[in-house]
């Protein structure tokens, strides 16, 4: 994988932040698995989840 990051002293590079990228998607997936609605916008506020659930219910 290529990236534009520079290299730190002795070739050091941050590793911890990589896991942040997937976090919003992880939570959205968890919500979908839990209550069956797909939220496509972060943050996943209670109001957005409520709206999605309502829409799903109204559709039948």
């Amino acid at each position, binding site marked *: 994988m290529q990236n534009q990051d520079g290299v730190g002293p002795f070739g050091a590079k941050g590793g911890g932040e990589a896991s942040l990228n997937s976090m919003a998607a992880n939570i959205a997936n968890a919500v979908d698995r839990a209550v069956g609605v797909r939220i496509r916008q972060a943050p996943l*506020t*209670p*109001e957005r989840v*409520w*709206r999605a659930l309502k829409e799903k219910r109204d559709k039948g």
Partner: protein
Amino acid sequence: MMPLRKFTIHQPKTIAEASQMLAEFGEKGRLYAGGTELLLSMKHDLLRYEHLVDVKTIPDLNKIEMKNGSLTIGSTATHRAIERASIVKQNLPVLAEMETKVANVRVRASGTLGGNLCFAEPHSDPATLLVALGAKAQVQGKSGAKTVAIDKLITGAYETSLAADEVLAAVEIPLPAKSQRAAYLKFQLKERPTLGLALVLDVDGDTIKKAVAVVGSVSAVPTQSNQTNSLLTGTRSQVDKQLTDAAEALAQAADPVDDLEGGADYKRHLIGVFLRRAFIKALA
């Protein structure tokens, strides 16, 4: 951001002096206490005043004391002082608990109860609870002192019934009777609450004899509905069945508006959820 415009601070030593100054400055002056709302608005150039009358210098205006069965809180008492006062925790725990959740600790450390009520920001936690508790405002002006119910003091978004020369001196809260149960709940994700709901029930055994439910933050002013209050009376199991209707009537009366804290329909939904939760909490 623009720098704060120049203004002059005046520090009266008595309420009468403050009232005199406010009358003299008229539109160009404003009463200043904690400054958590006022100075922020001035910094954003939403409000402009040449003179600020700092009432924090008036001795004993921040006193918290018991007087004739009422808890009397001086208008410059900070939220932090109220939440920490043992006299409040012992006599009116619901108020102390509500105060612990106002904004954040930095705001509570300088923001005052009087400032909160007089700025009349629609998302006020204290206003909603105080209306439910039947609190009164002690007001002093040029023509003398008077007492006004909190729901008559706050007349609209950022609007009060105070005349230019009138100063809120203290808030007087009657202590709930032994038969009364009170609860305050709020829902908040961001800077200000989406909803605040206060419930005071007068209970006799398994029967609720009298109820007052007040919802705030969802629209301009704290609101109650006679229909809701009467639907909340009866035996507990009876009221349990009427909660949905009671919440609907309250939502109807409050007529929620869309704002940054949530859509109107979502707030209507929340009124139902939180009325039920408050009912359970008050009777727990």
